């Protein structure tokens, strides 16, 4: 019997544009997997010929989630090119903004983008709220949003939503799938946290906005420093940050951490989440200046899952291959010389488990994402990579946090190299960041007592050529921006984003990237409801750069709402 093909498009719960196709054998075990980004990203072309001081502001428009990450990367790549060092205050503010972003981003990722792969909402509606309320104490000494009355109210609220026919976010998952492992009571605890997280994420956004100057697009970073001088010198602003920080940290400690411990218990023997790491090379950038002498995370990479050896990153070994990507060019290029010339070849007709459809032709080009390689090897990036690299480096904070989690859950170190481990790593990274964000804050408060500089002056010599890059850690993994400046303008610009590392297609040698490798060997309960695939891919936190946001009315006739140019008297 030949393999059958399963197409999932799009795979992301909210941020779209990712398509996954898998071939399953007669036992529904995945034999091959293909990852395709279906949206073209043209930021590189738009940036050419522009003022390098605007690179960050334009780059932040790549995405609706990674705004700050690209903003900061664009600013710091240009600083690197021009040889500018931002003042200590500026670096701390950027670090603090980054911490605020992570605390927001990872909470939203787990609850709103990934949570329903683990939590069966329908099951939660049948839970006993009193039993669930007691059970919550097993996972946290101080559980949050799990009082009996609160849990009853959660059931009521969700039920009335469902009864109105407005399934909303709950319409997408595969309720009742046998690989859902939480008990009804555990599902109810997590569902209550899902709703609580909707409230907490607002506080997190406000926390970020304090030093981001303007909302919703941060404006406070400039090449050379930051502009939020008055904010960092204002005791009111500082204490406001601290109040909001406490609320978000509280949720991370008492809900997010507890739910992952609960998941480790419930899913510790569920086969479909105990694989999912096919590429065992991990790459991480550095991040989070805590003070003048210490960063929370260091950069580096490990190979073949070997935690006994860690290597330093050499920029020149980062290259991108476009053999199977919809771009012209045969050479594997370093990003400084990267070319972004589209060569779209589309999909072909084929058979799938849901009948005839357009499918990927894997022998040709099949994705808008390039395939980045480090020293010709595929690398996984993201929170798991960050923790593994730092664990291998002997980073005490990371070793202690990871060690405590493994001890508490009774899992071996090997359990980190799984889908469950990847999801747990994101929580552990969030916990490390939220525990240490206050150190960044204190460093800033201490330093502004004697030093209020936030900006380093610079000049761009239009007769000179410059090149520079930013490489660092952002919520979805290692991000790099690469810029060449000539005649005072951007000559070439490339962004190698985390999801590119993870979601990229095969390279010229046929080496597959982390997504494609992670799915091979995965057994599906029902290929027409491939929840297991979603869970593995969502554990990477996919975010295909570039959002397009046409409001799509999905078959609803709008003719009655059409504005008639004649009757309204508009002259056009």
């Amino acid at each position, binding site marked *: 019997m030949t393999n059958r093909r399963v197409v999932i498009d799009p795979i992301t719960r909210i941020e779209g544009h990712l398509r996954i196709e898998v071939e399953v054998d007669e036992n529904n075990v995945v034999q091959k997997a293909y990852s395709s980004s279906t949206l073209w990203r043209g930021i590189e072309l738009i940036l050419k010929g522009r003022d390098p001081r605007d690179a960050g502001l334009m780059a932040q428009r790549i995405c609706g989630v990674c705004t700050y990450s690209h903003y900061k990367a664009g600013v710091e790549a240009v600083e690197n090119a021009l040889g500018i060092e931002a003042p200590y205050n500026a670096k701390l503010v950027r670090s603090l903004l980054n911490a605020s972003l992570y605390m927001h981003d990872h909470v939203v990722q787990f609850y709103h983008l990934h949570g329903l792969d683990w939590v069966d909402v329908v099951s939660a509606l049948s839970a006993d709220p009193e039993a669930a309320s007691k059970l919550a104490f097993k996972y946290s000494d101080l559980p949050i949003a799990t009082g009996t009355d609160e849990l009853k109210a959660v059931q009521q*609220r969700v039920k009335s939503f469902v009864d109105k026919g407005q399934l*909303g976010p709950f319409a997408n998952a595969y309720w009742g799938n046998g690989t859902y492992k939480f008990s009804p009571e555990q599902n109810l605890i997590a569902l209550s946290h899902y709703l609580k997280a909707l409230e907490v994420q607002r506080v997190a956004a*406000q926390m970020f906005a304090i030093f981001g100057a303007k909302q919703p697009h941060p404006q406070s970073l400039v090449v050379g420093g930051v502009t939020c001088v008055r904010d960092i010198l204002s005791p009111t602003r500082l204490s406001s940050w601290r109040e909001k920080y406490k609320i978000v940290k509280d949720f991370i400690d008492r809900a997010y951490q507890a739910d992952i411990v609960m998941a480790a218990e419930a899913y510790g023997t569920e086969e479909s989440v105990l694989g999912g790491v096919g590429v065992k090379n991990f790459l991480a950038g550095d991040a989070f200046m805590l003070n003048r002498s210490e960063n929370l995370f260091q950069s580096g990479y490990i190979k073949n899952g070997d935690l006994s050896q860690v290597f330093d990153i050499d920029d020149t070994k980062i290259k991108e291959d476009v053999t199977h990507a919809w771009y012209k060019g045969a050479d594997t290029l370093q990003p400084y010389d990267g070319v972004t010339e589209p060569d779209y070849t589309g999909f072909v007709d084929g058979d799938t488990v849901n009948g005839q459809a357009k499918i990927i032709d894997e022998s040709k080009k099949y994705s808008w994402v390039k395939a980045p390689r480090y020293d010709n090897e595929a690398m996984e990036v993201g929170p798991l990579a960050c923790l593994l690299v730092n664990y291998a480096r002997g980073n005490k904070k990371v070793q202690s946090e990871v060690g405590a989690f493994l001890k508490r859950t009774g899992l071996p170190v090997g359990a980190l190299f799984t889908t469950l481990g990847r999801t747990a790593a994101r929580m552990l990274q969030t916990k490390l960041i939220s525990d240490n964000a206050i150190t960044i804050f204190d460093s800033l408060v201490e330093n502004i007592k004697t030093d209020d500089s936030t900006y380093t002056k610079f000049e761009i010599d239009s007769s000179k050529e410059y090149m520079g890059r930013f490489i660092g850690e952002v919520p979805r993994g290692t991000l790099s921006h690469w810029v060449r400046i000539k005649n005072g303008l951007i000559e070439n610009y490339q962004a190698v984003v985390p999801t590119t590392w993870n979601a990229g297609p095969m390279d010229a040698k046929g080496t597959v990237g982390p997504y494609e490798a992670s799915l091979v060997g995965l057994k599906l309960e029902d290929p027409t409801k491939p929840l297991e695939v979603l869970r593995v891919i969502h554990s990477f936190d996919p975010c295909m750069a570039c959002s397009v946001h046409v409001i*799509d009315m999905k078959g609803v006739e*709008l003719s009655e*709402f059409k504005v008639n140019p004649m009757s309204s008297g508009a002259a056009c």
Partner: protein
Amino acid sequence: MKILVLGIGNLLFGDEGIGVHFINYIGKKYDFEGEHRLDIVDGGTLAQRLIPIIVEYDHLIIIDTINAPGVKAGEVYFFDFDAVPDVVDWQGSAHEVEMLQTLTMMDLVGDRPHTMIMGVVPTVIEATEFSLSQGVENAVPLMEKTLLAYLKTLDIDAVQKTQVDIQTILPNSFRAFDAYSI
């Protein structure tokens, strides 16, 4: 009452950016007078991250691109979000439905303000330049008229302060000059 006019879209993608360009155009061209407070904000493509801003308002007017059966490029639609049936498809599609999903998430918490949506049908959605197709640019006067007429029903008068050509807005929208100061 506090009213928010929220421009949505990705200005790296031609017509996709019309929501943002349009609110920048309106903000430059008019002062608004009346008893209510009116704010104009560039929401970009931030979706969920706009919730903390949106909840501070009693009335929300979203300006975005739109797609539906039978629509033609350059047409303008204006409607109450509550007047259309459950259109939010969480499976997504080739185009995203993020803004609508965000509104539903607000319903889950129960604090979404009254929401009007003005959508214009785009033609060009690809990354090239900060530009608009002729069809969408031609729709701007109708969008403008529709918005001002609606604001009038809320007792808000638009007073023109200067003449603005939308072409002069396009290359500068990325600076978010009508951003919301927190």
